[in-house]
């Protein structure tokens, strides 16, 4: 089959197999597009043509030698939060502006082992803290559909690059919705697996109990291929789930007859923009046509997701970011009077405003006298929310709702008010708090043509079913096949 910029990963694999295109040609094509659109979109932080083409050549040589690997030669770009040995890895921050990683993350190694070719490192909100990619030290990323709007965050570059055809797929991370929300804003499919499915070793930690790695692609089918390569038990990560490797594509073709979709009334209330509510309703009609039934469920404690998250995430982050002290790597101030001064200046200079704010919040909620009231309380609310979901799954197979209450907003419209920004995450956060898998797929547009995403939240370890559900929807619709004219 022939191949083009917006070929899916699955199509690209076939094109490579059929020798319609080589890995080097693919890499060159995407690098050229990346270079051309970089001044407009600013999706990448680091590109290294030489390194990429060397990898691509190796993939082609391997193919010629008969080496089998599921994604051999397929290009992939990684959020700049994944360490790759020998590549600059910045995490969107001045703190790591010149940091060259001395080892590779397990997820990247897994994808390389599957034959994928690294195109470059993608821009992101600094230290993954943000929902709009407006906090990166390396500048904002633009939404390819409308460059006056944000692509979402924190994996803004990961979403923008796939949406604009700068790479057929990318990796992101999701701590409070950082894969799912940009997926919605950029009309993509993005998945956050169950906590522990993908190794966190080599991924710069934001909130350790919430962070998860996941794929961005144009289709659920692609996400299944990517997740199968990314996931797997890792002895380097004590929170990695020890279970056999899974093939997430096996159930894609299953019919949805009998599927019970739970609709939490808390996800369909006042806060949701009318255009989004309409698109989601129409999508649910499609699901019913495909054989699913819907049932109202209630998650009474889910409203505490946002405050609980805004205690837990900053608390863990404040501790995780203590290692950035200018001693062994990272930014060190040029002038300082003594050790204390060196610490304080290096960190003040190295971190942006949002990161500093969250470190201060986190330090405060953990500080003497506040631990019980905040961190411990948040931990208890996590359990209550998890129990709400447990009850819901007694009457449904998957939970659905809009991925976000608003569509892609204009630059600067929220960044001055952190609370407004935080409320964007209201539907996505719960899955991070409980550790359940969750994904977003395109399901329509609002009255302004802005993209709407349907979120699917599954029970633990139910990724294969979720991908099946989204895939069947994508067989029956074509929202996901639209591309920006850029």
């Amino acid at each position, binding site marked *: 089959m022939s191949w083009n910029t917006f070929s899916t990963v699955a199509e690209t694999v076939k094109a490579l197999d059929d020798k319609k295109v080589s890995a080097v040609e693919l890499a060159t094509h995407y690098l050229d597009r990346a270079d051309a659109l970089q001044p407009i979109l600013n999706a990448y932080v680091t590109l290294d043509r030489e390194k990429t083409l060397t990898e691509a050549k190796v993939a082609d040589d391997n193919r010629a030698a008969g080496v089998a690997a599921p994604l051999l030669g397929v290009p992939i770009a990684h959020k700049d939060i994944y360490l790759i040995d020998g590549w600059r890895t910045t995490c969107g921050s001045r703190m790591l502006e010149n940091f060259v990683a001395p080892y590779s993350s397990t997820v990247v190694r897994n994808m390389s082992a599957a034959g994928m070719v690294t195109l470059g490192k993608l821009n992101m909100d600094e230290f993954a803290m943000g929902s709009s990619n407006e906090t990166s030290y390396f500048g904002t990323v633009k939404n390819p559909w409308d460059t006056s709007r944000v692509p979402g965050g924190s994996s803004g570059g990961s979403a923008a690059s796939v949406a604009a055809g700068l790479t057929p797929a990318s990796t992101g991370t999701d701590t409070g919705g950082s894969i799912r929300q940009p997926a919605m804003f950029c009309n993509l499919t993005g998945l956050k697996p169950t906590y522990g499915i993908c190794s966190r070793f080599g991924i710069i*930690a934001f909130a350790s109990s919430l962070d998860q790695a996941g794929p961005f692609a144009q289709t659920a089918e692609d996400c299944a291929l990517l997740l199968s390569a990314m996931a797997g038990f890792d002895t380097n990560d004590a*929170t990695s789930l020890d279970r056999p490797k899974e093939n997430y594509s096996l159930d894609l073709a299953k019919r949805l007859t009998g599927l019970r979709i739970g609709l939490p009334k808390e996800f369909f209330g006042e806060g949701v923009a009318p255009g989004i509510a309409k698109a989601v309703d129409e999508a649910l009609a499609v699901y019913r046509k495909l054989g699913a039934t819907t049932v109202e469920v209630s998650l009474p404690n889910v409203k505490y997701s946002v405050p609980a998250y805004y205690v837990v995430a900053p608390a863990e982050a404040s*501790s995780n970011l*203590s290692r950035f002290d200018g001693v062994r790597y990272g930014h060190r101030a040029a002038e300082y009077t003594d050790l204390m001064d060196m*610490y304080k200046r290096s960190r003040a200079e190295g971190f942006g405003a949002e990161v500093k704010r969250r470190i201060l919040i986190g330090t405060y909620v*953990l500080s*003497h006298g506040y631990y019980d009231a905040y961190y411990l309380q948040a931990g208890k609310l996590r359990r209550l929310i998890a129990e709400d979901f447990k009850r819901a799954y007694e009457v449904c197979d998957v939970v659905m709702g809009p991925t976000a209450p608003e569509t892609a907003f204009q630059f600067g419209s929220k960044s001055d008010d952190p609370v407004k920004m935080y409320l964007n995450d209201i539907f996505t956060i719960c899955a991070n708090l409980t550790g359940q898998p969750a994904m977003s797929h395109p399901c329509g547009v609002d009255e302004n043509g802005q993209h709407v995403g349907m979120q699917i939240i599954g029970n633990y370890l139910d990724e294969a079913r979720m991908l099946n559900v989204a895939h069947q929807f994508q067989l029956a619709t074509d929202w996901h096949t639209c591309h920006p004219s850029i």
Partner: protein
Amino acid sequence: MAQWEVVIGLETHTQLTTASKIFSGSSTAFGAAPNTQANVVDLAMPGALPVMNIGAVERAVKFGLAIGAKINQRSIFARKNYFYPDLPKGYQISQFETPIVVGGSITIMLDDGVTKVVELTRAHLEEDAGKSVHEQFDNESGVDLNRAGTPLLEIVTEPVMRSAKEAIAYAKTLHNLVRYLDICDGNMQEGSFRCDVNVSVRPFGQNEFGTRREIKNLNSFKFMQQAIDFEVQWQIAEIEDGRKIQQATVLFNPDTGETKAMRSKEDAMDYRYFPDPDLPPLVVSDEMLARIKAGMPELPEAKCARFSSQYGLSRYDAMLLSQDGATASYFETAVNAGADAKLVANWMLGELSAALNREDKRIEQSPVNAVRLSNLVARISDGTISHKIAKTVFEALWSGEAASVDNVIDAKGLKQISDSGALEKIVDEVLANSAAQIADYKAGKEKALMSIVGMVMKSSGGKANPAQVNDIVRRKLA
């Protein structure tokens, strides 16, 4: 001074004898070139994660069982957050609310043979920090992270000690125990065994504790004694001068013999403890517990009881011989080689102990090994030499003059004279010159007989069998 009660608690950091670090696969070997045993985890590179070493867990459990503590089969690791160059993550992984070992006790013996039970609060696992050097570079300090991540078991006592002597006795007993159990090599020079001592004073009879100061990082028993003595004096003087004791961390200066508060690191450090999200709860299975229990060596207390009953030793002697693995092993080797247990005990606690102390040697370094001592004791028991002569033989062995007991006896002609004929001859000679003493004895002075026996011993160069001489003299004067 008599109105003040001293209250002391100890926190001891023991480096565990694992091959690799507690959370990484780097080596724990001492003495490597700086930063050559520090991997991405130890260096706290972005994205690095801790992975738990089973060896550290097993050693903690072993310790807990040995002191009769409760093993928390589910314990939690927590982050202790603070900034210091040798703490690469900006936090230390430790245990806070739920440590692996809770309670337990260690019995110590004081000089006068009195025993005291020292209750322990807890023992928990944590990682050691790196090391800084401050003298090597002009305006900088150098950070070496080889040590960062070495497993530590922090052992905390209740504040139940009441004198420096008790504190030292406890520290020594603990030191023996951890080496006995083979969980720590106890090498204080290399920093394997470090004590922090919490000291406070209060008027006798007061229930409330006084404000305590913590003397950190004492790595010798001698310094511990000096530091505590100074600190106690200082605190009492302060209070008597009308000043309040401020809680502080204090360092001991061996050159001046003084303790001094450190530049305030942070007014009442806020460590912001919280459970480490990178480490799920540590579960010690029933299987592991049973396995470690089954593999426990005979513990000092059990050994002490057995020494007492099996060898007929006094409790005091049994305790001294069973405290230290090397000593206990020496004792039993000597007895098994054929010597009388009580005599061996006397010699070990007497001559041997004195010689070891004099030369600041440990029993493992004794030039006279257990079999050799056993031979010596056997030669006393079989009458070849007297107790007194044996001391000469011992010194000869100790200084390396000869390798075997019999060689020394023969070479120096120290064999005891037990032949009655020969003895009678010497006695007769002495009696011939002892008219005054004979008269005194006949007049009822028992001491005179001793005097005659003494002269016979002297005349024989100490080799006469004293018991036989006594009999012969008595018979002849009867």
